[in-house]
């Protein structure tokens, strides 16, 4: 019974994360065109639109964004898998021990 | 409480003075550390810019770690720490006694290291002796406060030699940063004293936080 809840929970979370991935991929928008502008206010106090940056600061952003999101998913997924794996291992041992105690066969 | 701390300190000093084993080995290690840096970083007779402050504090940190390990290893071997804890003494007082011993060891190392680093890296440590002393003492107290606590905790743990730096260095990063920044500022010909005062204030605040936390947690950490 407990194991079913674990797998169900894991499955729902996995679907959730898969939905997140799908949404972020489909939500990518093209970069707005840059125009040369005077120096912007400090980015530490407020966020500034990219159109106000000088052209030499333009870097392709998409690979950075995708890697960032990809890393988040991979990390969260990986962690979920790791905990799931450890949990099934421990639960397997618990069940084995409990049945052994019940049968009274363990030396 | 003070009496007990003083007794613990006197005991440590007495034992140490008999052989001076920890003192000599730690000081020698500190000196070799600095020499290593000198060989590695001095190019064509010129040391790196502002390198002296960093090297001094790294040598202090490494020598401190070694000294901490050796001091508590000695305690472990004769199970004296256990005996101390069983005595009807205030636990925090024991901590304070050991802390003062470690501070004494580190200050002795610094007395040796400062002229050595100054000489090897052409750093004018004599410019502001009072402030330099303030920086060194407050930094040492912060480092030693955390170090003594963790070393005492680790006495009965496995892999204690490796775990001490693992535990100690991340926590003492603010102390080292403040110490290095303050020392670097003091070594400049036109150093801003207000900045140095700020770093010393930060160091003192860190000292208070660390010593308070250590005193508070020493008892539960040392009980089985």
């Amino acid at each position: 019974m407990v194991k079913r809840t674990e797998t169900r929970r894991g499955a729902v979370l996995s679907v959730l994360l898969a939905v997140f991935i799908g949404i972020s991929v489909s939500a990518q928008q093209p970069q707005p065109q840059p125009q040369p502008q005077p120096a912007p206010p400090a980015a530490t106090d407020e966020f500034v639109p990219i159109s106000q940056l000088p052209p030499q600061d333009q870097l392709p952003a998409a690979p950075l964004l995708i890697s960032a999101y990809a890393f988040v998913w991979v990390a969260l997924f990986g962690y979920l898998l790791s905990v799931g794996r450890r949990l099934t291992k421990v639960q397997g041992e618990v069940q084995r021990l409990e049945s052994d105690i019940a049968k009274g066969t363990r030396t | 409480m003070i009496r007990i701390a003083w007794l613990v300190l006197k005991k440590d000093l007495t034992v140490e003075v008999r052989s001076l084993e920890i003192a000599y080995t730690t000081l020698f290690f500190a000196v070799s550390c600095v020499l290593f840096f000198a060989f590695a970083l001095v190019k064509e007779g010129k040391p790196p810019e502002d390198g002296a402050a960093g090297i001094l504090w790294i040598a202090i940190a490494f020598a401190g770690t070694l000294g901490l390990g050796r001091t508590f290893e000695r305690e472990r071997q004769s199970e004296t720490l256990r005996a101390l804890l069983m005595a009807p003494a205030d636990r925090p007082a024991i901590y304070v006694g050991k802390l003062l011993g470690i501070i004494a060891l580190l200050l002795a190392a610094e007395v040796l290291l400062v002229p050595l680093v100054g000489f090897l890296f052409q750093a004018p440590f004599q410019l502001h002796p009072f402030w330099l002393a303030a920086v060194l003492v407050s930094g040492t107290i912060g480092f030693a406060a955390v170090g003594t606590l963790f070393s005492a905790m680790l006495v009965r743990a496995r892999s204690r030699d490796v775990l001490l730096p693992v535990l100690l260095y991340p926590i003492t990063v603010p102390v080292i940063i403040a110490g290095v920044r303050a020392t670097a500022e003091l070594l400049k010909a036109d150093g801003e004293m207000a900045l140095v005062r700020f770093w010393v204030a930060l160091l003192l605040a860190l000292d208070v936080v660390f010593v308070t936390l250590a005193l508070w947690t020493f008892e539960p950490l040392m009980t089985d």
Partner: protein
Amino acid sequence: MPLAGLNAVMFAAAPFIIARADYEATMGLVQKIFYYHMPSASMFLLSAVICGIASARFLFGGSPRQDRLAHAAAELAVLFGAITLVTGPLWARKAWGVWWAWDVRLTSSLMGWMVAWAYLLVRKYGGPGSDKLAAGLALFGMANVPFVYISVNYWRTIHPKTSVVPTLPADMGTALWFSFVCFLLLFILLLRLRVHLEEQRARLDALYLALDE
């Protein structure tokens, strides 16, 4: 179980993320990392605080439940700290031109992350009594958290100040807080799952002990 209910809430919340992504046309694409970076950082600090409080309660109260909670929180601190420390530089590469800068916020965050790692190392390799050792470490680590948060306001740093979040325009603000709640729910779920693992381990230990009698 309440967890199933929480799951459902997160699932229902997912489609609204589509709405969120629409609003970022005014900023560069890379700024969208913010919606993952900032909540991760908050979860990282939250984990560190939970670990610290649980450690204190364990040290002074001896409750094994608090110890399990502290262990779980430390692992989550490593996880969310890693996410923060990777998404940050990826954003910084475009926003600041460098992958990393040794300013206060970044340095103290990295240091806090290392403390979380050290906690896990001590638990794994410290031998008997390592639970208390790690608890002591966690307390010092928790002392670092308020420093990380306020450091950007009191030092000259390249990292945005805390004044950015309250002054966000409405659409970005909504997106951020939505993302924040998603991460918070995820954090709570993961924490409960991880504590469950610790409880199972404790049960296993108890069984082995019972067998030995």
